[in-house]
């Protein structure tokens, strides 16, 4: 009875934890299992099947990424000995093969989705070759807009997060190039407004992602999509307030609007990721953005008062206090969320 009580009183279950190859290898490395026992234990876990599931996907993703990179490198080389028609034929053949193979495999299979992703990348390569062959002086943003439009239908039917993120990236580049190449609104002092627009565009994408994931779209539910989009929103929206601070608060409407948007985004994001989504990494990214903007502001104020040793000392201390407070808060939130999950 006493033994049972002792066992129950243990702070962590040890023998009742789910077992994997790593744990068996740990015990073997500690000299508590001999080789025969380890092999038998590993066999009993059916590692080959488990491994094959993982290797099957990894080989597909890594192999496809390498082949696509090879294709992009090849056409970036702009081989002079290869006739333009041959280039078009080659890339269009590859594109059709990928699209047809995706259709044949079916978009419910992972290989079908990856083939459609490959076809979507090849559309971009095709447009780049078009740009190389017919240098009409058109702006590069048009290629990106066209690319986004041409693959939009595939993005919708594929139900594949990687393809959706590719499409979002293409639209982001198109927006930036449009702003840079076609001129920002004149006499409106809104040059930094591009970051606000990008923030809103990606914010809509994030809202769509959250809504979709909450309503049963399993293909959108991977956390990585949320983190990538949220990170990009914070990057875009942090630039205007930093520019506003550095410009002695004399920036244009773009910086001001961006600063307001960042404040709203951080507040809303904090409530959402803390109360609803329960995502500590997203909270951490938000707090990091807040720290950066806050420290820029404090640094600016400190160096306006004095540019001597005291200003550096004070800034160093403020940075320490800020990062410690942020880390303390995140640890605290992380523990609470972890406890909530285990309950």
């Amino acid at each position: 009875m006493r033994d049972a009580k002792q066992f129950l009183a243990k702070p962590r279950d040890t023998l009742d934890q789910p077992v994997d190859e790593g744990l068996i290898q740990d015990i073997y490395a500690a000299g508590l299992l001999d080789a025969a026992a380890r092999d038998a234990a590993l066999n009993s876990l059916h590692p080959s099947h488990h491994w094959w599931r993982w290797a099957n996907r990894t080989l597909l993703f890594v192999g496809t990424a390498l082949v696509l990179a090879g294709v992009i490198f090849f056409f970036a080389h702009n081989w002079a000995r290869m006739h333009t028609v041959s280039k078009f034929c080659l890339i269009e053949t590859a594109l059709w093969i990928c699209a047809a193979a995706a259709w044949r495999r079916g978009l419910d299979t992972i290989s079908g989705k990856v083939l459609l992703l490959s076809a979507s990348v090849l559309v971009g390569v095709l447009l780049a070759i078009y740009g190389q062959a017919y240098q009409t002086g058109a702006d590069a943003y048009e290629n990106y807009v066209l690319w986004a439009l041409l693959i939009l239908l595939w993005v919708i039917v594929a139900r594949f997060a990687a393809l959706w993120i590719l499409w979002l990236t293409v639209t982001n580049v198109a927006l930036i190039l449009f702003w840079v190449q076609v001129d920002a609104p004149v006499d409106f002092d809104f040059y930094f407004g591009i970051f606000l627009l990008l923030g809103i565009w990606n914010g809509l994408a994030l809202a769509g992602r959250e809504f979709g994931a909450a309503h049963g779209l399993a293909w959108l539910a991977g956390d990585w999509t949320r983190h990538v989009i949220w990170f990009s929103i914070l990057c875009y929206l942090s630039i205007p307030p930093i520019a506003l601070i550095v410009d002695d608060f004399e920036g244009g409407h773009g910086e001001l609007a961006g600063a307001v948007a960042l404040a709203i985004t951080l507040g809303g994001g904090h409530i959402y990721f803390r109360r609803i989504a329960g995502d500590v990494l997203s909270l951490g990214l938000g707090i990091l953005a807040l720290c950066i903007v806050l420290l820029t502001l404090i640094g600016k104020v400190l160096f306006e008062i004095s540019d001597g040793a005291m200003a550096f000392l004070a800034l160093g201390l403020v940075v320490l206090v800020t990062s410690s407070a942020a880390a303390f808060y995140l640890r605290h939130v992380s523990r609470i969320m972890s406890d909530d999950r285990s309950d």
Partner: protein
Amino acid sequence: MTEVTKQPRTLRDVLFDLTRGGLLDENAVPRIDAYLSAQPVGTSEPWFVKLLLALGAWVSAICFVVCLGVADLVREEPQVLFAWAVGFLVAAILLRNLTRHVFPHQLALALSAMGHFFAFWGAIDLSPRDAAAAAVTGIVLCLVLYPLYRDSLHRFLSCLLAAGCLTTWIVVDEVWPLIHVEMLAKVIGIGLVFMYRPDLRVLRPLGYAMAVSVPASLFLVLLPEDVFAAPWWPANAILAIALIWLYRWISGSWGRMRTEPLILAVLATLAMACFTTPGILAAVGLMVLGYARRDLHLMGIGVIFFPVFIVVFYYDWQISLLVKSWIMAGSGAVLLAARQYLNLRNWAQESLT
């Protein structure tokens, strides 16, 4: 009809089977229980909190060093610089080991960064060979502080700094063949930490630092051929042998390597080693080791490094874009062909259904 959900197998189930099969002594079970109970519970500090702490300490250390410089408190003499370094490092060790709160720990990290800075400055001031002096200083500081400064983040950063200094010395003094010796040492270090002594958790930060610095040092492919005068094939050979050793470790013995998927994995690795760039082998190795150890950090390093390396490889000065395109597409074709072949086998189709 009630549906019975399959519970994951526990360690108790596996040990029970082993005991019943006569492969495990009954007394071994309490020993394993005691061993696992004695293992320190991993601090579940999220990686981004560690990153935040490291960034904060680094920025504040820069501010404090500039403060000392502006206040004219630092004379550029090796003895004075070393005295500052020792003072800051001792203060950092004491503060870290005697306190339990975030702020003093942060301050200790910043003080240690300052100590490192003054130690490097003193060593460079003392020696005519800057890079060699920095490498020696980095390694000595790492060796001394690793046992004294009991903090996984500091240990990781200290090892990474030492490895970075060593690579910088190899580049600046152009002792190129040593890059492969360094690579070999790091690969052995990763193997020891994650495959053979995973019980020594104190060595994990060293292992992670090596896991980051192996792919990072492969960014040297960016150097032009007239600057980087050594061939890359030894790195390929080291990484391919390490990968094959990893397969052996995963399978359990050389005898169990005689299975179709593992033979194919070895052949694909050897084929890739013949023509690919070492960065791809390093990324694949980290992903496989990470999966075998169920270590998300190792897998993350491999997954992040892979696309970054492809982008960096684009700017490789040593070979033309045309050759690079064949290397990339060829490597990918080998992997896809291996997958395609294995997918045709019955056991693979069964396991995927």
